[in-house]
């Protein structure tokens, strides 16, 4: 019975999920709903258009570029060129924490900048207004950098944000101005915007400052956006271990760190989906290898630290990593031992992001909980099946529109940090160097993998599996909770966190324990509803 609850016949589930769709839609969705087999890893249709009318979790390219990748930067004045809404909705809503060294340092995160395009700008063009806006921002703040983000109408009316940026940059001389063509209609989801952001940051920021960075073990943290303070916890651990963080992309980052990032000796990638392009481009241009790590989960954090030490190949570092793990582990262990009896055997579903649905499975494993179904909102096949499928991925019309930068080794700065032979040796030791195995390899056989889950499918899945917790975002939060099932937001963490590292693991264990065991879920039915009718209840009181 219990096993059936955890894994109902997945092929039947799949049939049920698509039966209500019109035939064409059903045919398309079927390819994105896959019964997992970690040995064979079947193909998942991903990164394709959402059928119009389907209630999707997905957002747009602008959200991926401005919201996700550039949003956490604090000392860039990020001006959104477009009608007011796009800038308004991305204003402080992603919880990218940042900590300046002094109260005088630049921090524009609490601000919202927009050109607030009006009808006449749409009709006659908005470039003039954009240039005025850039000038006004420069005059008011004298920032190091100003970035321009294009919204849907900008591309359609032909405003050239790049030319406007170049012109203003030359005019100022002491302010780096650059633009992003991240109109919301590009690509099929936020993912296109990630790629566009990577290209822009690589072109306009990385490599501008060649001052050698200090430190023995120098790395960049890629795809960590410091939601709820995640990057702070990783920084704490790096400090303790003696690893130098040259730059983060982009949580708690500064312009000067990003401009100096190419002086690091390793890129570690957390969110593969949103930042893998940067890893590849920096490897090609500067010879810095990238490695997939995961700091979500205490065991995963320990594993990732060991991999980093292994990469640097330094015995002292390896010993220090072991010391830190030994120091941090007891408090984690104490908490999980206390909580585990209450969470063990429970089930979870994760439908979120382009990496989180994978990473958070580690934390649920630590809680003794099974992930019965998972999927991403905007990932590609390589995030599911592993990067080995990359050569076989068909480039469709939507992906073709996203620029692929042609990157070549820098004639002066290219310096391979490891020889080919060293890299091969490291890979043999299990380090995911320039590679990522994807989510499905880690998921159990017969678990369900669904890409771009629709609202309808989520309700069906919940009905069938009755999971103990569902992980998604704000749009799904109260829908699922109305069904009597707690929903953990894995974009905003329900305004908690951090969830990375050792302290984050403890936070997560406690939050999940609190959520799945909250008495409120047993209080939903009124006593008279349980008793069947009011009269019966009243009568029983009388006889007591």
């Amino acid at each position, binding site marked *: 019975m219990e096993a059936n609850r955890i894994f109902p016949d997945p092929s039947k589930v799949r049939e049920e999920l698509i039966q209500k769709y019109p035939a064409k839609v059903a045919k398309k969705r079927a390819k994105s709903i896959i019964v997992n087999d970690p040995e064979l890893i079947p193909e998942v249709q991903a990164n394709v258009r*959402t059928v119009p009318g389907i209630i999707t979790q997905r957002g747009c390219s602008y959200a991926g570029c401005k919201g996700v990748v550039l949003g956490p930067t604090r000392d860039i004045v990020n001006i959104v060129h477009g009608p007011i809404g796009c800038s308004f909705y991305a204003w402080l809503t992603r919880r990218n924490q940042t900590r300046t060294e002094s109260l005088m340092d630049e921090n524009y995160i609490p601000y919202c900048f927009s050109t607030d395009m009006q009808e006449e700008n749409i009709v006659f063009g908005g470039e003039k207004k954009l240039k005025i806006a850039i000038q006004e921002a420069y005059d008011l703040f004298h920032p190091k950098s100003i970035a321009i983000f294009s919204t849907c109408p900008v591309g359609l009316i032909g405003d050239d944000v790049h030319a406007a940026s170049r012109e203003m940059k030359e005019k100022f001389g002491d302010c780096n101005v650059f633009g992003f063509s991240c109109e919301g209609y590009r690509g099929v989801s936020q993912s296109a915007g990630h790629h566009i952001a990577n290209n822009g940051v690589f072109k306009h920021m990385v490599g501008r400052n060649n001052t050698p960075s200090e430190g023995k073990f120098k790395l960049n943290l890629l795809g960590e956006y410091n939601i709820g303070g995640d990057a702070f916890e990783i920084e704490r651990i790096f400090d303790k271990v003696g690893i130098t963080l040259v730059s983060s992309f982009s949580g708690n980052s500064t312009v000067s760190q990003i401009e100096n990032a190419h002086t690091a000796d390793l890129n570690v990638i957390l969110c593969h989906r949103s930042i893998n392009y940067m890893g590849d481009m920096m490897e090609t241009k500067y010879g810095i290898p990238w490695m997939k790590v995961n700091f979500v989960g205490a065991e995963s954090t320990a594993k990732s630290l060991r991999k980093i030490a292994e990469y640097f190949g330094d015995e002292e570092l390896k010993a220090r990593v072991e010391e830190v793990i030994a120091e941090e582990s007891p408090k984690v262990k104490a908490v999980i031992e206390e909580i585990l009896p209450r969470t063990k055997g429970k089930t979870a579903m994760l439908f979120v992001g382009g990496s989180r649905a994978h990473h958070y499975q580690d934390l649920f494993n630590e809680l003794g909980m099974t992930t019965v179904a998972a999927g991403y909102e905007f990932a590609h096949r390589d995030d599911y099946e592993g990067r080995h499928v990359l050569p076989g991925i068909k480039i469709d019309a939507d992906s073709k529109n996203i620029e692929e930068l042609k990157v070549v080794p820098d004639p002066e700065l290219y310096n391979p940090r490891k020889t080919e032979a060293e890299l091969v040796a490291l890979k043999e030791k299990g380090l995911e160097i320039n590679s990522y195995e994807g989510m499905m390899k880690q998921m159990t056989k017969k678990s369900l993998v669904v890409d771009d889950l629709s609202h309808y499918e989520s309700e069906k899945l919940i009905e069938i599996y009755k999971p103990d917790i569902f992980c998604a975002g704000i749009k799904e939060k109260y829908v699922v909770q109305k069904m009597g099932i707690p929903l953990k937001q894995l974009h905003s963490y329900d305004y908690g966190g951090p969830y990375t590292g050792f302290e984050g693991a403890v936070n997560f264990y406690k939050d999940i324990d609190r959520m799945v065991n909250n008495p409120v879920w047993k209080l939903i039915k009124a006593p008279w509803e349980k008793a069947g009718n009011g009269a019966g209840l009243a009568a029983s009181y009388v006889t007591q």
Partner: protein
Amino acid sequence: MLLRHTSKEVKERVGLTINPAKTCQPIGAMYAALGIHGCLPHSHGSQGCCSYHRSTLTRHYKEPVMAATSSFTEGASVFGGQANLLAAIETIFSVYDPDIIAVHSTCLSETIGDDLQQITRKAKDDGKVPEGKHLIFASTPSFIGSHVTGYANMVTGIASQFAVSSGIKKNQINIIAGWMEPSDMREIKRLSSVLGVKIVLFPDTSDVLDAPQSGKHEFYPKGGTTVAELQSSGDSLSSLALGCISAEPAAIALEKCCKVPFKTLDIPIGLTATDRFIMALSQAGGVTVPDEITADRGRLVDVMADMEQYLYGKRVALFGDPDQLVPLTEFLLDLNMKPVFIVSGTPGQRFEKRMNLLLNERTPETKFRNGIGADMFLLHQWMKNEPVDLLIGNSYGKYMARDEDVPFIRFGFPILDRIGHSYFPNVGYSGGLRLVEKILNALMDRQDRDALEEKFELVM
């Protein structure tokens, strides 16, 4: 300091908006459409619009907000979005089975010139709208007006596309709700019922965006104005439009299509605006005002009189939407307070006229501004130059309030960090009482916090 780059020196800006006191049209259209029973709002544009609007409304209400999107890609943006919308309509009726789809446009579909009237007609002609189901639309370009304009446009679309005139008048009054909370709409219905006037209230988001926890997700919650009610609005004796920007356009449309006369009132926030509402509704419905309502009113006036010393002369800065700010400003004046700075990102000359009428005599020193250039950055600069005792506005105000150490009351849209707005009304006399309580609590907590030990009062 959170807003550490906000300087005291005010410089006129013409290109850059900083910390806007408005957002864009489509979210207002989505909110309005949720107030129709069995309706699924549909955003004709990129996925991001729909996602952002649903997210913001969800954060504000902590409730499910369902809406679909045409999921534009680059192809649709070049060749037009008709195919996407037609496909969406088919998918929505077969998967989500709403009674109504309410389509609104976005800056994207407006820029490429998609004509919603033509596309929705084609959908009907092609048989994509099942028997007994409805497809309505509103044009809501994000580059004109604000979220309030979008709300007004959708409410107008609802009125003009549903109302029919049968030729036989019904003994009922339309109340067209300006942008207000479900709690406010519930209170309007309660007041009408106490008055004994039969009304058709639309839109009505009560029992939609304040739905109870039942263990089941009701995709179409029990609330919302029904199609039958909307159709009958063409036969009503008259309409009361609550808000000249968010509600009046729908009343004008009803007058045009069904010859229903209308009167425009403020949203009944505060004593005087509620007085006008009660007078107007009792006159429209031909009823006398019952003692219950007079007693409600009396309680509010009683508190205003009893606590006047804590309110007198207090300088208030406020920002938000015009239809709420006008009656709120009037209420603050009735409370003997000084609304000194007022900002609204929503354009429109009516705001200026009303504010001039209200303020010229009583607080001629008040600075107010709306439309382009009227943003929270400007408001903050004003506050830095001439400090205030109280700030009233949406959740974004908390950054200014913290930096300037000013008591802060959340009011307007969006409220992302507190609950209450969807459950407890701001309208009517009870809403007025709630507002006074909030204002007093904020001011008196501050007095307690800052009082010297020897000046710390037990009885206040």
